[in-house]
């Protein structure tokens, strides 16, 4: 399935992803709403999150093979290097793995907003780690 080129991908966007993005944006301060842009076969979500004291700019990419391949989220705001941060300030949100059991992403149940919420949780952990040196989620260690 190619997200922006195939009929199945377009139906997924129109019936699942876009409605949940619009619901997320509804009543939200415009500075924190999700904006979209197309980048080849990839759909890019750009947004800001404020998990605690700081505001972070982020982008989540729905690659052409989304949703079978999980979205990729990176923080555009400069971060201090930490163990759960991959190359290009990409967040380690789903366990990296090729098998069903090895990945936390579930294309049958998760939408792109789940990725946004996961990024919020990651950033909240980052702020705790920044102050204490401890990542507060034991299962991520």
């Amino acid at each position: 399935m190619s997200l922006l080129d195939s009929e199945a991908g377009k139906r997924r966007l129109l019936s699942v992803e876009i409605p949940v993005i619009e619901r997320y944006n509804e009543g939200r301060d415009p500075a924190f709403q999700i904006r979209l842009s197309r980048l080849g076969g990839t759909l890019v979500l750009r947004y800001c999150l404020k998990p605690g004291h700081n505001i972070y700019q982020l982008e989540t990419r729905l690659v052409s093979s989304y949703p079978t391949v999980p979205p990729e989220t990176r923080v555009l705001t400069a971060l201090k290097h930490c163990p759960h941060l991959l190359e290009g300030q990409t967040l380690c949100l789903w366990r990296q793995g090729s098998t069903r059991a090895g990945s936390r992403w579930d294309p049958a149940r998760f939408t792109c907003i789940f990725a946004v919420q996961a990024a919020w949780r990651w950033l909240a952990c980052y702020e705790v780690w920044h102050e204490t040196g401890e990542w507060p989620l034991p299962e991520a260690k």
Partner: protein
Amino acid sequence: MAHLLQVGAGSGGMPVLDMLCRDPKIGRVTLIEPDVYKPHNVERHLFPLSAVGEPKAELARCWLLERRPDLVVDLLPCDLCDPAHQDAIDVAAAGCDIGVCAADNEPAKYHWDALMRRHAKAWTLGEVLSGGIGGFVHWFVPGGPCYGCVASHLKRSVKVENEPSPDYSQPGGPVRETTIPASKASIQTIASLHALITLALLDDPARYSPGFTSMLLTLQRVPEVFDEAFRPYRFRVPRAADCLICQARPTPSSVEELDVALDQALARLEDA
């Protein structure tokens, strides 16, 4: 006689294909397999060392015709997900009686599931667990649970590995889970189960009801994962009412209307 469409003739797919095509019910096969036979395949494959360097699809055709000269074998030596070959794959799916998925990666399984649902075909899937500690066989029929329903259910209800978390201090480092091969004996056992279920499903897809939709057969005892070896677990996975893969949601019926609606929706949300 039935037309079988199979994706994958690797170490798991080839024995399934071999066993299915020895059955007189199968009269025609279309095989989707883009890979070339490599030296590391020899240990677990049916083909000899002398075949290294040959396309697996061609080797499979020769193997089958040596045993069933009457069999019609069509080859699609392409990647299942390659957009350039979707028309040919669609034609093959439309004409088949049953599908067999022996793909070894998740995107290909979802792609196959979508293909089979689009053409309303019954299909089966075999999966050997890392290290050969056991394996799954799943069967699917039109209107039943999709691969997304099954994968989502099993992800939550079954533990099939007990590996440490990746080393997050080494982002981009090797992923250990993909480096534990299964033995030929383990692969053959799950392939035999896969072939049996496929042949039974082929007899009457509409009424096939073995009491499960997915079967897990353990082959080894693994502490904290499987209590004992050679134990079958039968799962009756329902179609999930909230599955984002297979549950129909209202969208425009024509492709043109779909494009217009999507463009309008994206325009509302695009960067200013």
